[in-house]
C-alpha cells in the first residue's frame, strides 16, 4: 500500500511573528517539500506560539502519545530531521518531548492563553472545539447587569497597568443613558518587554472578539474599535481576518448569534506614538487627532470616544472575560492572592535564557520567574537588574527576588507589576545609562501637553549627564530628586508621572553606577537618540 493512502500526519509550525522572525516560514516550506519528496501526506497547521520562545521555531508532530515537539529547528536541517523520522515522533537531538508535559508549560495555569499555540488561530471550528463562544452564549442568556456583576465578582482588574477593577468601569458605562456607546480595546502595547497582547491577537483573535462582544452586550454598546500599534503588522492582519470570519459566522454584526445584540468591530492602526497607549490619548487618536492626553475627569466611561460613554480595556482584560463568563466568577476568583485575583500573563524578555509567556496565578515571586522559568541570563553572566512593568517600571536588584507578583506588594516596594513584562539585564548593564534612557524615552514620546513631562524629561537627561560627568554630583543628585518629585506630582498622566520610577529605582539600588567615571565612547553613542536631537 502506498504511503499516499495513509492518514496524513498533522504537523504544527507557528505563524506567530516571533517564530517567523527566526525562520518559521522557511521551516514550514522545507517541511512541505520534504514531505512531498518522501511521498508522506502531512496536514500543516500554522498555529500560534506556545510561548516557549527560546525553542522557536518549534515544530510539533501529532502522535498517539501527544504532540511531540522539536526545537529550535533550522530550515537547513529539516531534510535530515524528516529522514530521521520526525513525522513519527522519532528520538532526535532537537526533540523536547510531549509539549503539554514539559514542566515549563505544565506548571503554568493557562486561562487567557489556553488556546494560544494549540489551535489554528483563524479556524473558527478549532475555536468552537476548544471551548470558544461558551462565555458569550452564557452572557446572552442573562441580563447585561448580571454580566457586569459576574465580572465585578471575579475580581478582574485591568491588565494594562493601572489595575482598575473592570466590573466597576463597566457598571459606570451601563448606567449611562445614551443611544451610542463604544467598546475600545487598547492594543497599543508599547511597553518594552511586553508582547502578550501581540501573541494573543496573533494566536487567538476570536477570543478578543468574543470578549469585546460580551463587553458590548454588558454595557449596551453597538460599535467597537481595536486600536493596534503599527509596529504589529501581523497582529493587525490577524485581527482583521478574524473579524471578517466572525462576521461571516454571525458572531458579529446584526443579531449576534441570533440574539437581540447588534455589534460590529473595527481595527484601527496607530501611528507609532507610544503615548497613544494612554487611554485618553488613544481616544483622541481614534478621533483622528493628535494623541494629546485629556485631563480626567471626565472619565472615558462617561465621556469617552466622540464624547460618548466608552469602555476602554486592554487586550488581556477583554480576553479574560469569556473564561469568567464560561466558568463563573468563583472559579476565577479562587486563583491569585489578596486583591490580585486570577492569573497574570508574565512576559520574560531581554537577556534571558528561557524567555516567553508564563501565565500563572498572582503571587509567584520575581525570583521564581527569572531564575526558575527564565533560567537566568542568555549570556550566562549573573543577573544584575530586572525591569518590571515596561519602560516606566522600576529596576530591581536580585535582593528583591522574593517579592511576590501582586499589585499591592509591588507598590509597597516602590515598583509596579504593570503589564507583567520582565526585562532581564546581566552584570554588564550600566544603570546610569538606563536611567538616562528612561528620561530620553520620555522626552521623545511625551505628547507635550504638560510641562513637567515635556521639559522635565529633557532636563532629566542633562542632569544625569552632569552627574556621571562628576559635575557637582551631590547637588545634581538632589536636583534630580527634586525634578523627579515635580514630574511625579505634576504630570497629567503616567508618562511623566512614572518616568521617575526607573530613574529613582536605579539610583536607589545601583548607586555606584552614578559615580563619575571615564565613559567608554561606545556606551554613550549608543544612547543618543535621533528623535530627541533638535528638541528644545
Amino acid at each position, binding site marked *: 500500500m502506498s504511503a499516499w493512502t495513509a492518514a496524513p500526519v498533522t504537523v504544527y509550525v507557528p505563524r506567530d511573528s516571533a517564530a517567523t522572525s527566526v525562520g518559521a516560514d522557511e521551516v514550514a516550506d522545507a517541511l512541505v517539500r520534504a514531505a512531498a519528496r518522501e511521498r508522506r501526506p502531512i496536514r500543516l497547521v500554522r498555529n500560534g506560539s506556545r510561548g516557549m520562545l527560546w525553542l522557536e521555531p518549534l515544530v510539533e508532530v501529532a502522535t498517539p502519545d501527544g504532540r511531540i515537539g522539536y526545537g529550535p529547528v533550522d530550515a537547513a536541517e529539516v531534510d535530515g530531521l524528516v529522514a530521521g523520522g520526525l513525522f513519527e515522533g522519532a528520538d532526535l537531538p532537537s526533540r523536547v518531548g510531549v509539549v503539554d508535559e514539559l514542566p515549563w508549560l505544565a506548571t503554568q495555569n493557562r486561562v487567557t492563553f489556553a488556546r494560544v499555540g494549540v489551535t489554528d488561530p483563524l479556524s473558527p471550528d478549532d475555536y468552537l472545539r476548544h471551548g470558544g463562544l461558551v462565555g458569550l452564549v452564557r452572557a446572552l442568556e442573562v441580563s447585561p447587569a448580571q454580566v457586569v456583576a459576574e465580572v465585578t465578582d471575579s475580581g478582574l482588574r485591568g491588565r494594562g497597568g493601572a489595575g482598575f477593577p473592570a466590573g466597576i468601569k463597566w457598571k459606570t458605562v451601563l448606567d449611562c443613558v445614551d443611544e451610542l456607546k463604544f467598546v475600545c480595546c487598547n492594543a497599543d502595547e508599547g511597553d518594552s518587554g511586553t*508582547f502578550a497582547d501581540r501573541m494573543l491577537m496573533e494566536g487567538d483573535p476570536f477570543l478578543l472578539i468574543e470578549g469585546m462582544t460580551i463587553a458590548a452586550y454588558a454595557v449596551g454598546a453597538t460599535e467597537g474599535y481595536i486600536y493596534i500599534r503599527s509596529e504589529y503588522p501581523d497582529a493587525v492582519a490577524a485581527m482583521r481576518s478574524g473579524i471578517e470570519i466572525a462576521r461571516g459566522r454571525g458572531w458579529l454584526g446584526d443579531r449576534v448569534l441570533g440574539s437581540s445584540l447588534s455589534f460590529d468591530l473595527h481595527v484601527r492602526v496607530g*501611528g507609532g506614538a507610544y503615548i497613544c497607549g494612554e487611554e485618553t490619548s488613544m481616544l483622541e487618536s481614534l478621533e483622528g*487627532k493628535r494623541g494629546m492626553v485629556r485631563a480626567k475627569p471626565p472619565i472615558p466611561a462617561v465621556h469617552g470616544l466622540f464624547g460618548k460613554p466608552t469602555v476602554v480595556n486592554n487586550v488581556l482584560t477583554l480576553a479574560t472575560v469569556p473564561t469568567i463568563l464560561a466558568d463563573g466568577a468563583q472559579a476565577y476568583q479562587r486563583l491569585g492572592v489578596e486583591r490580585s485575583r486570577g492569573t497574570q500573563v508574565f512576559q520574560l524578555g531581554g537577556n534571558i535564557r528561557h524567555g516567553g509567556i508564563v501565565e500563572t496565578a498572582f503571587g509567584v515571586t520575581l525570583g521564581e520567574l527569572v531564575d526558575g522559568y527564565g533560567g537566568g541570563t542568555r549570556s550566562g553572566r549573573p543577573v544584575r537588574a530586572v525591569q518590571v512593568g515596561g519602560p516606566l517600571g522600576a529596576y530591581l536588584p536580585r535582593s528583591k527576588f522574593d517579592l511576590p507578583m501582586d499589585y499591592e506588594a509591588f507598590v509597597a516596594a516602590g515598583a509596579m507589576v504593570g503589564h507583567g513584562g520582565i526585562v532581564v539585564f546581566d552584570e554588564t548593564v550600566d544603570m546610569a545609562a538606563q536611567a538616562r*534612557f528612561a528620561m530620553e524615552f520620555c522626552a521623545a514620546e511625551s505628547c507635550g501637553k504638560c510641562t513637567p513631562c515635556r521639559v522635565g524629561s529633557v532636563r532629566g537627561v542633562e542632569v544625569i549627564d552632569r552627574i556621571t560627568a562628576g559635575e557637582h554630583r551631590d547637588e545634581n543628585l538632589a536636583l534630580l530628586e527634586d525634578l523627579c518629585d515635580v514630574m511625579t506630582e505634576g504630570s497629567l498622566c503616567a508618562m511623566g508621572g512614572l518616568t521617575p520610577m526607573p530613574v529613582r529605582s536605579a539610583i536607589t539600588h545601583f548607586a555606584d553606577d552614578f559615580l563619575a567615571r571615564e565613559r567608554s565612547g561606545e556606551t554613550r553613542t549608543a544612547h543618543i537618540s535621533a528623535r530627541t536631537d533638535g528638541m528644545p
Partner: protein
Amino acid sequence: MNSTPRGESSMTTEALVREIAANHRAQRGALLPILHAVQEALDCVPPEAIPVLAEELNLSRADVHGVITFYHDFRSKPAARTTVRVCRAEACQAVGAGRLVAYLRDRYGVSLGETSRDGSLTAEQVFCLGNCALGPAVQVNGRLHGRLDEARLSSILDTAVSQ
C-alpha cells in the same frame, strides 16, 4: 507624474488623495486611516496632500499638519526601497541592540533617522517590536527578524537591498 511602486503613475497626487479620502469618509475619525492609505500609496504623505485633506475633511491645514507631525510613522518624503527599523527599547538593549546600531553606521554609513548616500537604505529606530525574548530585533520592509547579530543583519539587508 507621480510614479509610485504600485503603478498609479497616471494619477496626480491631488486626485489620488481625494479618492482615498472619499473611500474612507464614512468612517468615524477618518484622518488616521486616510493618512495610512496615502502613505501606503505614495510611500509618504507629501506636503501637497495637506491642503487637499484639509478641504476634503473640513479641517484647517494646521490641524492636518499637526496630526501628521505628531505621529512618527508619517514621513514627508519617500524612504529608500529598503527600510530597516532597529528596536532600541530596553529588552533589545539588554542583548546588544546598540551593537547593531553601530554596525549600520560603520558598514552601511547610516545613522538612525537617515538614508544612505546611494539612496538604497533607510534606518529608523523603533521602541519595541514585541519580540522581547528573541532580541535584538529589527523590522526590514515590514518583516520582523529576531535573534540577530551583525552577520545575520548584514545578510538580511544585502538580500533586501539587492532585490
